[in-house]
């Protein structure tokens, strides 16, 4: 793990202190503005049209006003109470919000290149461009994995930058493609339109993005670059699965079954994938730990040891990912229960997917107990992080493949 550079870069200037805080409150203002539009503006909230309402001049007016008010208030408060600049929430959150905004902008630009409505039909979705962007994402993610592996053997700064850069590119490509797919589902038919988190293919892309993003935030904050090879190899394995799904016709935009037609889907599913993604990163850290531990035990003098974070750091990074994933996964499961209560008449039915979510939760709960209350460290917990992720993968894909139940709309055919 290399120390962070001391001189303030442009990144730090923009993402720390005054600018971060002003922007942070501008984002809050904008979302309050949009919420106000949903509640009070003419037309109000219409589930199917809201995406477009936000991007229309009406949305820009409400959101923009909110952003300006937020930014202005923040500027005033900073002058009155400069100590606020020390806060960590704004600088930690703002880059993520910037990224999301950039994805929206990229998707809006890409939407201009969509073919005319007459060329699109439900039967033939091949002319839609999100598919090509996803293909580009697949290639870039695999390339990034290769570059991260190359970096282990040839730790050139240049190779490292390419690896990181391509991982970022992959995330933005994935985000853009997903947002575009949302738009495309409405282009096919307003009735079909729905958020792009409705089938395995779509959530896989979400999973790649979240996994890579969590890893990259660790790389940026803690310089854990040696871990990238493991995390991106996991992502690449997922990419191959996604390509297979596409090849068997699971990538088409399909109308939602009645059970999925609920706003809960937009909250429950992405929240779940924050959990899954974080557990994937924990698994990556665990694998790196095990490799480094093995090398050290053999007395290896390999240069690779200089790139990997130390054992102690890897141990803590795995814990940190679980600390991100566990609350997110808990919340996601609770949201799922709330949805189940509304759609199926009971918050818990011991459906296979629910039960496996509980199993995943118990496994990581035990991990946390072992670590926090019993002071376990090192190898055993690294194995636990890896094993926990295998359980997670079964919960995510295995249940859909091998077990039936109420979640069977996620079924592979």
């Amino acid at each position: 793990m290399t120390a962070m550079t001391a001189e303030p870069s442009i990144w730090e200037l923009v993402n720390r202190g005054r600018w971060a805080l002003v922007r942070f409150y501008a984002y809050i203002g904008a979302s309050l503005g949009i919420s106000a539009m949903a509640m009070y503006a003419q037309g109000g909230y219409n589930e199917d049209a809201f995406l477009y309402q936000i991007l229309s001049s009406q949305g820009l007016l409400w959101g923009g006003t909110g952003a300006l008010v937020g930014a202005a208030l923040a500027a005033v408060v900073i002058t009155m109470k400069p100590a606020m600049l020390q806060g960590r929430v704004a600088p930690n959150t703002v880059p993520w919000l910037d990224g999301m905004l950039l994805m929206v902008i990229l998707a809006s630009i890409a939407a201009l290149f969509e073919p005319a409505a007459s060329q699109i039909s439900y039967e033939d979705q091949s002319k839609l461009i999100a598919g090509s962007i996803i293909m580009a994402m697949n290639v870039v993610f695999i390339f990034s994995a290769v570059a991260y592996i190359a970096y282990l053997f040839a730790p050139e700064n240049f190779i490292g930058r390419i690896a990181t850069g391509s991982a970022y590119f992959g995330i933005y490509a994935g985000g853009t493609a997903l947002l575009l797919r949302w738009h495309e589902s409405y282009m096919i038919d307003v009735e079909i339109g729905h958020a792009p988190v409705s089938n395995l293919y779509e959530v896989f892309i979400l999973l790649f993005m979240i996994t890579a993003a969590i890893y990259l935030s660790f790389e940026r904050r803690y310089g854990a670059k040696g871990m990238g090879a493991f995390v991106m190899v996991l992502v690449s394995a997922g990419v191959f699965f996604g390509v297979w799904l596409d090849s068997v016709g699971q990538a088409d935009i399909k109308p939602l079954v009645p059970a999925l037609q609920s706003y809960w889907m937009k909250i429950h599913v992405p929240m779940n994938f924050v959990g899954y993604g974080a557990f994937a990163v924990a698994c990556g850290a665990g694998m790196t730990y095990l490799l480094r531990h093995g090398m050290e035990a053999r007395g290896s003098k390999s240069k690779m040891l200089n790139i990997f974070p130390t054992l102690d750091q890897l141990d803590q990074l795995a814990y940190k990912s679980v600390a991100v994933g566990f609350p997110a996964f808990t919340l996601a499961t609770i949201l799922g229960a709330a949805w189940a209560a509304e759609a199926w008449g009971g918050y818990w039915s011991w459906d296979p997917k629910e039960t496996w979510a509980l199993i995943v939760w118990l496994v990581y709960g035990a991990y946390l107990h072992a670590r926090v209350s019993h002071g376990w460290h090192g190898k055993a917990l690294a194995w636990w992080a890896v094993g926990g992720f295998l359980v997670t993968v079964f919960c995510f894909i295995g249940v859909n493949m091998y077990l039936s139940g109420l979640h069977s709309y996620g079924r592979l055919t």
Partner: protein
Amino acid sequence: MSLAIVLLMVLSIASVIGTVLLQNQEQTDYLQQFGPLWYWVFRSLGLFDMYHTWWFLTLLGFLMLSLTACLWRNVPKMLKEMRSNKVTLNERSLKRMELLQHWKLKSTMSAAELEQIFRKQLYGWKFKAVEENGQHFVRADKGRKHKWGYISVHSAILIVLVGGWISVQFGFRGNMAVAEGSMEKTISFLKGTETATLDMPFQVRCNSFEINFFATGAPSEFRSNLTIIDEGKEVLTSDIIVNEPLFYKGVYIYQASFGDGGSDVSFKLFHMDGSQKTSIAKTSVYKTWKDPETGLSLEVTDFRPYNVENIAETFGEKKFKDIGPSVEYVIRGSGIKPVKVKSYMNPYIDADGNNQGSWMTVSLTGDAKDYQTVAMGLDFTNQDEWRLYNAFIGYLSQIEGKRNEKVNFEAFQKALHDVYGDSPPKDIQSIGTRTIQAVNLLPQLPWPVIPVLDDFNHVYYTGLQLAKDPGMNVVWIGSAILVFGLCIMFYMPHRKLWLVIRDTEDGTEVSLAGITNRNQIAFKETFNDLFTKLDKEFGHS
């Protein structure tokens, strides 16, 4: 290894069983699947309704006990710990700190000034200062409430489990099938391996049920119009759809399923004895019609008003179309193997618009997986084709023995003339091919009559799920506390910093010490930042 870890792992392993073994299926299915020995082993362990067995509930009980014990033991200790904030540090505990830095300052800054600089760097921290034995201690805390995270998470899980217990103990959940136009009062549900029933304090009438479709043919909405009748009075009429239940008298009513509510169907029976006769059989779904003459019986099991199918001929293409109503029945008779049939009312019109004749799918095993398509050749909805078929069969039987292509063709010509006279229809080519297909197939069918759906009066039933769950709100409260507690636990570490100032002969000695109970990496970064800043400030002035 502690009890908590063991308990969590045992619970998760036990939970796996119930996901691998399908729960609450028909007992006969289990018996068939596992054979008598394993069936009885599994049954006596309660594995077919595993999550309600005494041993699984005991495990959950142990979890509750363990949680209570943990809280009982730890809460007083933690509350005390959160109240205490000892400012002074002895030499030994100072040395033991994870993070520690020292300065030897030559400057003449007073302890108060140094403390002021220290305080200025830390936004949102709580400070306390004490003078003791010539040393000046400043303690700074952030996240002192951290232990509340532990307390709330563990009590939240306890609350959720209690909520679950209340749900099971005082709530109910069951199903009710209400045919369009009729009323129901009773729900049925599984209790262990048996079915139990319960009367609701009101009646539900289904006024109508409808399915709406996407253009692709996939269902987009299941909608029931219900009226609640309480003590003979209509109190409420409302639509429900999936995800939007109805609430009355503490009971939620959900749209869960649908099916045929006993539609009237009538079959046209085409007699295969050469008499050219047809007759009508009227019955309804879930009933059995018996032919007094032949002893043939039709047990009608289902009816569907629409069947949207992909009729594209090349693989991978899609062309969705409603191919019309279908009826499912089991056909039985003396000397006939009983088979399950799904028969369509309309002839099959292919993607190019060509009539391919009437058709049905037949399952010899009675399993829906084994349905095989039988194209009957004739379009039974067209009376002329039935006449043509019979005339052709008649002429063929006259020339029995010396059949060849030429006389066959002549027989067909004659039959054609009998039916259509001098003006055969335009698609006579295809009719001819199909009639020959029928001549080859139909006489081989073992049935004395061929039943073809002729008319229907469709009625749905709506499958409702009714549930009362007094524990639900308790569960939500527990869940909210759980998430809140986890956030405190993971994102509000208790960080402590000390600045210890003591005057010595050649200047001032200052120590900066830090400790945290979570997220050591980030704290180390913060500590080093603080050290760099203080270093600058202390050195400069």
